């Protein structure tokens, strides 16, 4: 039996889901959103990374033919089931205050399949240091 065939079967075992990407200012919002997602909704298929962003509505004067300085921004990526997508999208939107100027942008895309993800049980709590 070929590995390719096994992989094809395996990938069909994982349900379609939604990917939500947010680009937020580098002010700790990403971390707060991730904590909130885990605490309120149990979402752990999520993370954040750093990238450069050139703001859509940023007021920046530049010489003709030059680009404005880019800002350090945080990309938060969240994967959730299709039925969770609406509430997760709304939670992030209001929690990160994306409706305010300079607070970034977010979007949702469809993913054909996604593996489950769980955290190890013996990770100490970030605040208390207690093992859960």
């Amino acid at each position: 039996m070929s590995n390719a065939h096994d992989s094809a079967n395996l990938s069909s075992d994982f349900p379609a889901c939604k990917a939500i990407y947010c680009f937020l200012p580098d002010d700790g919002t990403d971390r707060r959103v991730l904590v909130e997602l885990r605490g309120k909704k149990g979402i752990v298929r999520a993370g954040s990374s750093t990238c450069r962003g050139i703001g859509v509505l940023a007021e920046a004067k530049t010489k003709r033919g030059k680009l404005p300085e880019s800002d350090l921004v945080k990309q938060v990526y969240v994967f959730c089931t299709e039925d969770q997508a609406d509430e997760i999208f709304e939670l992030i939107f209001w929690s990160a205050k994306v409706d305010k100027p300079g607070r970034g942008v977010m979007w949702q895309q469809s993913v054909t399949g996604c593996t489950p993800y769980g955290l190890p049980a013996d990770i100490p709590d970030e605040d208390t240091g207690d093992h859960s």
Partner: protein
Amino acid sequence: MSEIIYLTDVAVITCIVDKERTDAVLLAARDVGARGAIVHTAQGWGARERLGVWGVAVETEKDVIAFLVSSDQQELIFEAIYQAAELNAPGRGFMFISPVERAAAYVPEALRKQLHVNPE
């Protein structure tokens, strides 16, 4: 509570290019109407390795650039990026468009009034 203004009919254009071409790509996209971009630095290997001095493989540094664009602009911006990145030459990089179901961001007051949604 106010309601979220969802933006639909949008797409993400993702372009993987050499770092030296990034500014040219951003300028070209801006000139045809792209309003913002996200740039990730990527380091690693492609399908082939380039050997440097002493025959050691050189890790290439590429930038992964993402543009959130409206669907009616996507062809124009895609073409401008393609030309600026010189993607017709071998080894320059590649790009793709992926559909977005919905997006959300700050919507200026004037536009909200025009849409009769969440006026302040």
